[in-house]
């Protein structure tokens, strides 16, 4: 069967002309801030990479607390290219979180969340939360000392929320303490529940981008705008950038393969100088700031409530920022965005150095 006949076969059944017309007419604004548009595409690419490397790692990983740690050592030492794919999965995740943070802050500072794109912000924010949970659940799977302590702190921290805290804690841990049951549960989150939710939300997110079109920053909205076609101009640029990102991930994976610590032992003291992943450092540092007791109240509960309020406010910013929704400049929220950013960076750096 030659290609023309195959083409005809499909065209008799599906209207490809419509699709072609749609792709031809998809235009994207071009301006001085357009570089931030690429962060979304890079995240998508890295997620794709995570899905593929994750699938092959799942062939060999054993989600049982007695074998988990050893199975990773075997993946890295005995299997063909095992070290490379584990390393790729590790660095892909790190980079995905970096790019996600850049994506979020560029959206925040350019006010791209403003009317009518609130749901883009909400779906994106939930995706960020899920990605962080991906990270946490992913590194418990190593079942080493650091992962064990980190998951105790993270799930215990959720337990400090009033009323629902203990439910969340028990649900995440699968019991009263972090045990082998927690590992099985986090495996289920990591390879089944979170990926499915992620796929759905990415679908929603991308559909909404298509529906609304790219957001143009407030300062440029009133001026005459230049647009370029998505296919092929921007698509090729996207591919070029993806190739560069792939190069970076592969280089990092080859030169700096991740370590694995001692196997987790519930009866061993927590090792010295233990630190969580870098994207938890700002929370880690915040927790250290609060004393045990503040005016007779439990300090950690206050810390957790304040952190939750901070995150909730961040989530609901599109609803609070009325000015930019009306198309006016909103300096207050630029400053709020900068304050969040500075807090995050400063706390992360302090956490890193201390």
């Amino acid at each position, binding site marked *: 069967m030659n290609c023309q006949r195959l083409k005809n076969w499909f065209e008799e059944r599906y209207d490809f002309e419509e699709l072609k017309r749609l792709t031809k007419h998809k235009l994207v604004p071009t301006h001085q801030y357009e570089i931030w548009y690429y962060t979304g595409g890079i995240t998508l690419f890295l997620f794709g990479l995570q899905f593929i490397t994750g699938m092959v790692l799942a062939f060999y990983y054993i989600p049982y607390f007695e074998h988990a740690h050893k199975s990773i050592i075997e993946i890295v030492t005995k299997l063909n290219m095992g070290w490379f794919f584990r390393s790729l999965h590790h660095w892909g995740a790190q980079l995905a979180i970096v790019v996600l943070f850049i994506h979020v802050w560029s959206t925040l500072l350019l006010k791209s969340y403003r009317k009518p794109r609130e749901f883009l912000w909400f779906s994106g924010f939930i995706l960020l939360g899920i990605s962080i949970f991906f990270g946490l659940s992913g590194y418990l799977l190593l079942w080493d000392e650091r992962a064990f*302590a980190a998951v*105790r*702190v993270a799930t*215990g*921290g959720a337990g400090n929320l009033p009323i629902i805290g203990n*439910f969340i804690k*028990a*649900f995440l841990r*699968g*019991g*009263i*303490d*972090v*045990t082998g*049951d927690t590992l099985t549960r986090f495996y289920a989150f990591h390879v089944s529940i979170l990926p499915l939710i992620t796929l759905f939300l990415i679908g929603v997110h991308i559909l909404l981008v298509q529906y609304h079109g790219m957001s143009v920053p407030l300062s440029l909205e009133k001026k005459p705008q230049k647009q370029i076609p998505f296919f092929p101009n921007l698509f090729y640029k996207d591919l070029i950038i993806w190739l560069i990102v792939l190069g970076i991930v592969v280089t990092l994976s080859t030169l700096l393969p991740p370590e694995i610590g001692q196997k987790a032992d*519930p*009866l*061993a*003291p*927590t*090792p*010295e*100088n*233990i630190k969580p992943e870098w994207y938890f450092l700002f929370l*880690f540092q915040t*927790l*250290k700031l*609060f*004393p*045990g*007791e503040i005016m007779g109240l*439990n*300090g*950690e509960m206050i810390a957790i409530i304040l952190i939750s309020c901070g995150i909730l406010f961040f989530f609901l910013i599109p609803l609070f920022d009325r000015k930019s929704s009306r198309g006016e400049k909103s300096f207050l929220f630029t400053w709020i965005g900068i304050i969040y950013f500075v807090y995050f960076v400063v706390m992360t750096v302090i956490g890193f150095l201390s």
Partner: protein
Amino acid sequence: MKINYSLITRRTFLNTLFGGWLLTFCGGSFYALLKFAFPTLGKEPDFVVLNTKDYIDIPSNSTKPFPWGGVMGLFFKKDSGTMVALKGVCTHMECNITYKPEDKKFYCACHQGWFDEDGKNIAGPPPKPLEFFDVKVEGEKFIVAKKGIKVELPKA
């Protein structure tokens, strides 16, 4: 009294019936799912029984871990030779603590919390002192129990 007309239409009646059925069905299924997803929680033990010989000989000013349910308990022999048992879990964020013999203090590496020999929280974020247990010797066995718990061993 007889009403000549119906208070609800046949359509509303059927919608309510089916809607109600659907709601009950979904609610029931969801409830069952939640019951399954939430584990039956184990309980922290009231007491544990340990062999005396495993712990009696530890040097003074040091600790030795023992399993307290799913978490770490610590036998601690003070300089004076007194043996005590405590839960080796920080009261801040539940990390395992270590004993620092040179400072005679307990230390939590997660968020730099300090406790003195008697478990009092003296520095860093921990909100409460460490939990100490009652230790009783019965023949070859140590019985480590929560404070205020009456231990009733099954007759052998």
